[in-house]
């Protein structure tokens, strides 16, 4: 990594994650320490959790709390707005359920710094080994929908591990509150002529992350929401 006095914000949207949140944050903090040339902050956006997510997160990170649960899109929007308000040069979003390896976080950050890319997506589908077949199928259907409806070709439109440049932080305005925000981010990036790239990452599927993650029924909701967004844009 080149020497730079810039700031990076790692955003972790979390809802009722007290079983795993401490472990996830510990691992992220461990990796953050390896980033020598960036001042890095860890932010948890507690999306109206009813369990101890907020209390446990406070030990390891800055915590912003939504009063009521609004969805992962809303939590990500709050995190990106915090990054914008506090002039962070880079932002990175990572799931709270432990689905992503914090080591992959470094890959994304390195890619952001070395290139001029604005949105770096951690793709689980470039090498989908170990990913449940229903998830591979569901994600590929959503990729196809994203391509047809939004005109963006990516291999993993639903990845929660994403890196944002300053330009992306400042220009991407998320409107949706649910999981459909992932496709919306890519769409808005394309509309704003931002450079989008993908980096292969590993997805860790535990019983917990499988239960917490998106189901294929959610995929239908996402498709509906993308269509609604598209109509609204008209």
């Amino acid at each position, binding site marked *: 990594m080149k020497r730079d006095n810039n700031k990076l914000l790692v955003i972790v949207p979390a809802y009722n994650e007290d079983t795993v949140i401490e472990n996830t944050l510990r691992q992220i903090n461990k990796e953050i320490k390896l980033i020598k040339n960036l001042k890095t902050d860890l932010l948890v956006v507690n999306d109206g959790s009813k369990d101890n997510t907020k209390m446990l997160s406070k030990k390891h990170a800055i*915590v*912003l709390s939504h009063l009521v649960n609004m969805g992962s899109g809303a939590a990500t929007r709050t995190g990106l707005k915090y990054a914008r308000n506090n002039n962070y040069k880079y932002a990175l979003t990572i799931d709270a359920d432990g689905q992503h390896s914090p080591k992959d976080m470094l890959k994304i950050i390195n890619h952001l710094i070395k290139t001029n890319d604005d949105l770096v997506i951690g793709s689980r589908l470039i090498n989908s080994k170990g990913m449940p077949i229903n998830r591979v199928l569901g994600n590929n259907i959503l990729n196809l929908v994203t391509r047809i409806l939004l005109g963006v070709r990516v291999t993993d439109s639903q990845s929660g591990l994403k890196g944002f440049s300053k330009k992306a932080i400042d220009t991407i305005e998320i409107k949706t*509150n649910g999981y459909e925000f992932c496709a919306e981010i890519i769409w808005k990036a394309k509309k704003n002529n931002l450079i989008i790239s993908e980096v292969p990452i590993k997805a860790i599927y535990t019983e917990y992350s499988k239960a917490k993650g998106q189901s294929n029924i959610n995929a239908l909701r996402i498709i509906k929401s993308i269509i609604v967004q598209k109509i609204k844009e008209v």
Partner: protein
Amino acid sequence: MFFTKYNLLIILSSPILMLFILRIYDNYKRKRISLRAGILLGLFWLILLIGVLFNKYIFEIILRSKLSDSTPLSLYDMIQIVAIIFLIYVSFRQSFKIEDLREKITKINEEIALYKKD
């Protein structure tokens, strides 16, 4: 005779349709919807209004083309059409209101979270 079923359909439905067109204009003026969305929604309701205003001719064309084997517009058909138009109007209005409220709640939630850092 003025109070034919065709005219009754116009009298009952067109005020609802015109009200909705006016609301779209009002929503555009208040910047709740974009110009393009306003034009699209306005066109949708305008087509329905034109359909209602010329319902007699439309029903005659449908009957002549044998697209319907039913008798000319009955009183029951007329009530049904008015009710459907009214329900579409109510559902559109409600969905606008819900969307508006959702956006406001989201904004409040976000502002509180950013203002009151834990």
